[in-house]
């Protein structure tokens, strides 16, 4: 083939103690759709953000069209012909679609914005891609899929040569995905390069001409799509057998603690029923966007449900709120540590005690001493590394922050501990500690419900695996029967 459109070689990038990219490479030709695959944390995002102009490599070469790519400036990246379509685009809700496409560079005639020209040009771009939207409507209320289409059209109006779609299908319905894949093919046929990032292997096989697989910041394989199959890709992505990295402590599985029946929430998930027993670790697996987090948030009372029942230890919960969930013995370690898990500017002591202030009061006053003692005890139990218990948690590393979140929830002595992505973005050592802790808690009689995108973690920790796809429970797998392929297949809906 001719000179490639994009060539990245030996790309390296460190964030603090983490090697996000480790001599990664990637090649995209004109008129080619390249599937970029890898588990969470494999380095895909860092690579994409570098191309978006948001990061600068520590080392390595990026060539676009044979010229050196100037990094570190989003505007410059756009001018060099790179456009990114995100999973959640950000349009201007109060502007028309046409203006969203041309915002900041509206066509003018006679010194004034030429609205009819703008609409006409947008309409013709829409027509090129077979998009059936009125350029004159406002962006407010547009579905995510349609928003992505507008972003793609914006990229085309900027004459982007390389279009990166970063998990664009995560929030889309099947029909919307079909349309998206159609658009990706059209872009390829116009001679542009497309990088397609997705966890759904089915889509990758439908649209990509080749795949590049990343793991631990490095590129492990690149191959034409015709030469690979699902099993091969999964092996590349995972790259290791499940070892005894997960210190699973044998636990006595007892009576039912949580029972969920027919749980539904409009537009989020539908007819979810399952049980979690004392001493059991149940994993809720599935792709990002399959509704896992929404289900556990509903169980904790954050999100409303439209129908169904939640029963804790035989008592049905009604008028469900987080404080009632807590009273019933439910704890939730949420997905987003910084936004939902912690008060970043507040101290370790304040964060730890926030859930149990009621217990720490005397004559209505919160006892500062008792609060600090509580926090210090948990810090010791969880081997937290900190300078002072009064330090704000924003000074801690991600792993230590997660330990504070676990402290604040374990301090409530829950009967059911829900953890949503408990080890995302934390280092390997802390990860093992978190796994040990969850195992021990289960062994001590706690019921644990774990949402995770980390397959080895799911397989290593769970007694039972529930798999969600597009808002529904599609499979239940016992520990004995669990394999990566089976979970992946159920989650992606692909025939493996």
């Amino acid at each position, binding site marked *: 083939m001719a000179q490639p459109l994009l060539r990245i070689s030996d790309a390296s990038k460190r*964030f*603090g*103690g*983490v090697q996000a990219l480790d001599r990664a490479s990637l090649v995209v030709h004109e008129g080619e759709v390249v599937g970029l695959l890898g588990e969470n944390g494999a380095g895909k*995002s860092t690579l994409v*953000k570098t191309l978006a102009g*948001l*990061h600068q490599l520590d080392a390595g070469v990026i060539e676009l069209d044979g010229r050196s790519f100037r990094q570190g400036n*989003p505007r410059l990246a756009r001018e060099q012909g790179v456009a990114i379509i995100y*999973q*959640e*685009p*950000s*349009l*201007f809700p109060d502007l028309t679609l046409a203006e969203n496409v041309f915002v900041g560079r509206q066509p003018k005639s006679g010194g004034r914005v030429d609205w009819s020209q703008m609409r006409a040009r947008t309409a013709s771009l829409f027509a090129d891609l077979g998009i059936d939207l009125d350029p004159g409507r406002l962006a*407010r*209320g*547009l*579905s*995510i899929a349609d*928003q992505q289409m507008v972003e793609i059209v914006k990229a085309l109006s900027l004459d982007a040569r390389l279009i990166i779609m970063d998990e664009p299908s995560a929030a889309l319905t099947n029909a919307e995905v079909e349309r998206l894949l159609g658009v990706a093919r059209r872009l390829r046929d116009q001679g542009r390069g497309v990088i397609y990032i997705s966890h759904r292997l089915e889509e990758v096989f439908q649209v990509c001409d080749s795949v590049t697989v990343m793991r631990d910041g490095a590129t492990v394989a690149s191959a034409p799509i015709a030469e690979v199959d699902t099993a091969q890709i999964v092996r590349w992505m995972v790259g290791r057998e499940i070892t005894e990295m997960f210190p699973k402590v044998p636990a006595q599985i007892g009576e039912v603690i949580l029972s969920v029946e027919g749980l539904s929430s409009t537009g*989020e998930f539908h007819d979810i029923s399952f049980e979690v027993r004392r001493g059991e670790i149940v994993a809720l697996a599935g792709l*990002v*966007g399959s*509704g896992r*987090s929404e289900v*556990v948030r509903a169980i*904790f009372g*954050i999100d409303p449900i439209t129908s169904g029942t939640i029963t804790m230890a035989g008592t049905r919960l009604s008028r469900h709120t*987080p*404080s009632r*969930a*807590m009273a019933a013995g439910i704890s939730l370690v*949420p*997905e*987003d540590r910084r*936004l*939902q*898990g*912690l*008060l970043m*500017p*507040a*101290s370790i002591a*304040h964060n730890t005690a*926030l859930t149990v*202030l*009621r217990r720490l*009061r005397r004559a*209505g*006053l*919160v006892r500062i001493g008792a609060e600090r003692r509580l926090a210090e005890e948990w810090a010791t139990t969880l081997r937290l590394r900190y300078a002072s218990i009064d*330090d*704000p948690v*924003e000074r801690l*590393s991600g792993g230590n922050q997660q330990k504070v979140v676990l402290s604040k929830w374990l301090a409530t002595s829950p009967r059911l501990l829900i953890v*949503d992505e408990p080890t995302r*973005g*934390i*280092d390997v050592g802390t990860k093992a500690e978190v796994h040990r802790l969850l195992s021990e808690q289960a062994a001590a009689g706690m019921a644990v419900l774990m949402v995770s995108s980390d397959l080895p973690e799911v397989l290593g920790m769970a007694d039972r695996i529930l798999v969600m796809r597009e808002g529904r429970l599609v499979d239940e797998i016992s520990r004995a029967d669990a394999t990566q392929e089976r979970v992946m297949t159920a989650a992606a809906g692909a025939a493996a």
Partner: protein
Amino acid sequence: MSRGAFRLSWDKSILLLLILLVLFGGMNNEYFATGDNVNFILGDISEIMLIAFPMALLIIVKEIDLSVASSLTLASALCGVTWQATGSIWVAVLAGIMTGVACGLLNGLLVTRLGLSSLAVTIGTLALYRGLCYVALGDTPIADFPTEFTDLGYTPIAGTFLPWVVVPMVVAGIVFWYVLHGTRFGRWLFAIGQGDEAAEFSGIPVLRVKLWLFILTGLMCGIAGIGYTVRFASSSPDGALGFELLVIAAVLFGGVAIAGGVGTIWGVIAAVLIWGFSQSYLQLIGWDANALVIVSGVLLLLSVTIPRLLGALRESVAQRTFRPKGTEGAPPPPGEGVAEHSPAGAGHDQGSHRG
């Protein structure tokens, strides 16, 4: 933490400023530090102080109430109207206080039930409540209150130079200090200001807390409205004009961060006292009473500008001394946050972090 360290020094410097001001004033003007003058000053600041307390709590949870002056005046108006109608000063006082509570309740419901911005809502109710004052009173003030009632405005408490209006002020100061810095509710307020989503995920009923704060603000406006009626011996529809701005200026000058999550009650007390004493001093040395609003404006601008400038300075120093420490996950670079902002998708739950 840097913000905490700065806040401490801000509060300290306010207190220092207050002491210096009193010393300076006392030395340069013989009337300044007399019991009579202090009696006058304390009366003068009492309404500001009473409303500054709940306003501080509101600003800590990132809300605001601009309708306080109108609520106060409406409470005073209803107190006067009820007095004329019933002839019972106790019923009148109760009616005034309940009016304040009702004003706060309406604000709170609009903000927490409809999810409106409190700034917008309370600009609206500011006009509404003020309008209702005219409805209640016409343009003629009510001034025929019993003298034993209005005497409370300036008569000192027996054996001291302190006016009676000091009593609710001191009681409120103690209660608010206790609530904000001692109780679980106070912790909740800081938690909401420091991260409302994390607060909600910690089981704090964020909306209910905010509703109660608006009601509390209304209650304090009601009490302040009674104090105002007592001190001016009248209910008039155009009382306390522009008062809301004074209260907010004092709260912010007292070290409560407009961005929420930070503040102390004694910082607010010190700020209100500084305002009262400096006004008094400038008046004593012959400044036009109207021109004194310059002081309020300057204090307000300084109280937001100085922390911001110091923050920027500290940041630039910090950036020069060490590279920002990365957490394990790739930290979001500046100007990113794509996942957070999807207003065009208002149809889809914005805050939904899909999992």
